[in-house]
């Protein structure tokens, strides 16, 4: 289920990148793709009724199968930080594009490529 939600979100993101003319919407589409991938990673480590992967005395019914895999969560935190970095750089470039071309519309950028 989560897999298909994630795939659908990636589709939405790609659709946005291909069809939207506003450059800011491209950034939003990229963010949607990022989020979709992150959801998939988190879902990968999910265990229904799972416990934190820390062994303590209080777990009388200790079972390895109950432990949640912590690696996907660690990965997703890093991926989020990187995603935010990319978005921040994209937003700063958009500001400079707007300053230089007084527009952030793809149609107005025709001929900008030297």
């Amino acid at each position, binding site marked *: 289920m989560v897999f298909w939600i994630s795939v659908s979100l*990636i589709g939405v993101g*790609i659709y946005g*990148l291909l069809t939207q003319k506003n*450059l800011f919407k*491209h*950034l939003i589409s*990229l963010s949607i*793709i*990022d989020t979709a*991938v992150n959801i*998939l*990673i988190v879902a*990968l480590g999910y265990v229904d009724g799972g416990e934190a992967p820390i062994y303590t005395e209080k777990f009388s019914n200790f079972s390895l199968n109950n432990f949640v895999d912590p*690696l*996907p969560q660690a*990965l997703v935190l*890093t*991926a989020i930080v*990187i995603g935010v*970095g*990319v978005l921040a*750089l*994209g937003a700063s*470039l*958009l500001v*400079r*594009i707007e300053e*230089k*071309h007084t527009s952030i519309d793809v149609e107005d*950028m025709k001929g*900008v*490529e*030297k």
Partner: protein
Amino acid sequence: MISLLVATPLLLAFLSILWKKQAEVMLFFAAVVNVLLLLVKGFPNGVEIHAMGSWKPPFGINLVLDNASFYAVLVVNLFFMMISILPGKMKKSYTTSLLLLLTAANGFILTGDLFNSFVFMEIMTITAVTIASKRDNFYNSYKYLILGGVAGSFYLLATVFTYAAAGSLNMAHVATLTLSSGALLAVTTLYTVGLGVEAKLFPLNGWVSGVYSGNELAPLVLGTSVTFAILYMVGRLFGTVFHGNGSETLYVLALITILAGETAALRQTNLLKTFAYSSVAQAGIVIAMISKGTEEAINLAYFHLSNDVVAKFTIFLVAGYLIYNYKDLDGVFKKHKVLGVAFSVASFSLIGFPLFAGFQSKIRIIMEAFLLKDYLLPAVVLLGTIIEIGYVIRWNMRLWFDEEKEEEKVKVPFVIGFISIMLAIILVVVFLNPNVFLEGTQKMAKAIVDTKSYAQGVLSIAKGGM
């Protein structure tokens, strides 16, 4: 020692923010220290690793130095060393980005962890985008960022699927596991898209012309060091980790890339754009040979890549400098004969003209393809070469023989003339003695196809301790 290759430029990148006036010296220092470290060490005897935080593989992150990563990281650092001695005007305000890019490129090559390679690739993209924005080239940089961001997401997706299928992110560990055919198909396809943008693979190379023609620094950095790092990873992933699976898609896309790149180059009227598309085509040849999967094919792929990056550095250095100093380039080489000779040698090397390095790699690639009973690749390479001859001769005629415009002669810094002519001489030397590059590329190819040694070398530390 291995971690120093990443740590030195990273530390200096931070320091360069604090001491801006010394930033240029820091870039030079980082590149020289890395090159010296590598030269003193020489090709490693087997596989050496640095286990970060003493986590034994397959756990934790490890940096791997074997013959393949050694050659790749040496090439990358040598190019950065040349960039670091270029006149300050050419890299003004971008030295911190260059230091971070050097960190990311070294880390990307050396890492033995799939997720870590994603992190380094993203840092590489971000820093490359800032460099691409030089001279207010914001829109083209933005396009590159968006495409790079999407590619990064696909690369991450591929990494996650690999983790789901193999239960490990360690490249050596994954290489020892047998993945189901479905998982392999999904993972290799996603990695093709993920690496395709930076590797300039068709149809993901739309950013190249705008970024390469936007300023004089971007093509020098992206067309040489970054290209080498990415194409190394294509070989490492598809050759070592996935045992050649998924290379059929790569091969088909590479053939289209060659023809699309050459055709687009022929249609250009801008010098930097022409050779930007030429870079696309050459990357296609390299990827096509990597996808063949044999040791000799991979050796020739990296031999051709070595020749190409030397030629491209010369071309972009000369063209990049002149294009921003003259309004019209017609007959410009009458004023700058040294630069003209270097440019002509490099451009004729690209088409594989006898006397220059490109001939050695192209003829060997064609003969190797015939030996492998592949007649399509030679046909495509020859067709591409014919197109290449068209635009190379056209540009040489224009730059050497067209009527000179009455523009005042610009004084070219000694460093630019020196580097360009030295690289041109290297291209002739490699034609006379191809072993200059072949000795390294042969070791590189052997290390890439020898999955067993790679995996044993990395994982043996789990038994033997630190």
